């Protein structure tokens, strides 16, 4: 027992903590993504009033993931969670073409925030399992991601529902952080 807890403590000091902020419009799939990262059941999701937080272990990192509700009424509270963010994950419902412009505007505003300056951004083009989903390259173009110069960014096609692409995204995110730290 003593040895085990000692080992755990040594490991604990080595494991880096990362603060990850999960944002996006309502119904983008943030909570489903959070639960699928934590390997939890995703069949009982409800709309997030407020926020959820989970700690996920990955590649020796403790990822503290903050999933904040995306409805318009809650968006003014997003800024309360900016401080000390290591990575911003921005989730997009690729099948919701009507709101692509709205989600683009929200993202642009986030990238202009002083407290988030230089923070790498990972865009998940979610819901790729739906036939109506726009491909990630179209979304990148629609959001003008290629014009981002002041930080690292990456777009990843994924489906939080099936888990496809999620792991790739997390690998990128950890690499981006290792480089930064």
């Amino acid at each position, binding site marked *: 027992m003593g040895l085990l807890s000692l080992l755990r403590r040594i490991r604990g000091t080595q494991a880096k903590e990362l603060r990850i902020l999960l944002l996006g419009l309502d119904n983008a799939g943030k909570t489903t993504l959070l639960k699928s990262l934590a390997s939890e059941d995703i069949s009982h999701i409800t709309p997030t009033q407020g*926020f959820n937080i989970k700690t996920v272990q990955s590649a020796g990192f403790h990822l503290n993931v903050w999933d904040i509700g995306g409805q318009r009424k809650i968006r003014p509270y997003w800024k309360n969670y900016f401080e000390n963010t290591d990575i911003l994950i921005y989730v997009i419902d690729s099948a919701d073409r009507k709101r692509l412009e709205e989600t683009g505007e929200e993202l642009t505003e986030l990238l202009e925030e002083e407290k988030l300056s230089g923070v790498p951004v990972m865009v998940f083009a979610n819901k790729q399992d739906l036939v109506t989903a726009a491909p990630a390259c179209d979304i990148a173009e629609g959001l003008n991601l290629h014009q981002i110069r002041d930080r690292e960014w990456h777009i990843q096609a994924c489906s939080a529902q099936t888990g496809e692409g999620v792991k790739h995204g997390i690998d990128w995110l950890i690499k981006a952080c290792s480089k930064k730290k």
Partner: protein
Amino acid sequence: MWSELWSNLWSSIFFSILRPMLKWILRRVTGKCELLRITYEENHGSQRTKRIEKSLKLSHQPFIKQLILPENVDVEVTEATKEIMKIKDIVPEVHSRFSSSFSCCLSQVVGYKKLQNEVELMRTTPYSSDNIHHENKLLQLWNLLMPDTKLESRISRQWTDIGFQGEDPKTDFRGMGMLGFNQLLYFSENYTKEARNVLSQSHHPQYGYSYAIVGINLTSMIYTLLKGGKLRTHFYNLKQAPATIQDLHDVYCYLFQEFNKFWFREKPKDIMEFGRLRDKFHKQIIERLREPRTILQYNNKD
């Protein structure tokens, strides 16, 4: 690890040797089997039904054991009661109340399982905007909650006035499917005054919250309570007959009003406190359901 082994060993000794021994002794001394003793010792209510349920579960008789299996919802209660009285040598002329007491308990137990299945089916049925019944019911929800305001169009920012997230409510039901929707509708249909009252309080400038979204989160809470068997206390106390889906919706209406009061009592700083307070409220309800006499409803007209 040792303590776990020890407790496993202890529980297997208890259930395979000590408990049957104790039952045998009690049976000799009192002249009654365990099921019969329970019906003599307890009056109608959660305590009695839960004890019967546990006794059936721990029985070594294959016929009795299968009655309680979660997948077995087609139990013929009257027939099963007769069969058990035969197995246990219970003479109806001597123990005249057994048959009615026991069949009441058994029908409650089977009813709870049936309700769980029915609710699961409703929950996994998604809201569909291609379904005309669903669409009509959605408009009905609007009219019940906002009788003086006309909904300008089916896709409208107005939906946020009753606490949906955006212009189209259909994306908000998610994992709660038609269960979440039917409960919102049931509340406004059967407790219209109370529902409007809660809605208007949800517009409070400081302590406001999104009515429909909170409602769907409360459906999720009730679903968890039902699935974990926690609502047995309430339903077994509520009435002798098996619980119906309406009974479950009534619990929802009660909890919605209770949550609303709780929220204002807690004076949250802002809506971001919702997660914490929802969990606190959930714990309080579980605590209340541990009390054997709890019924989740308001006394008549109070």
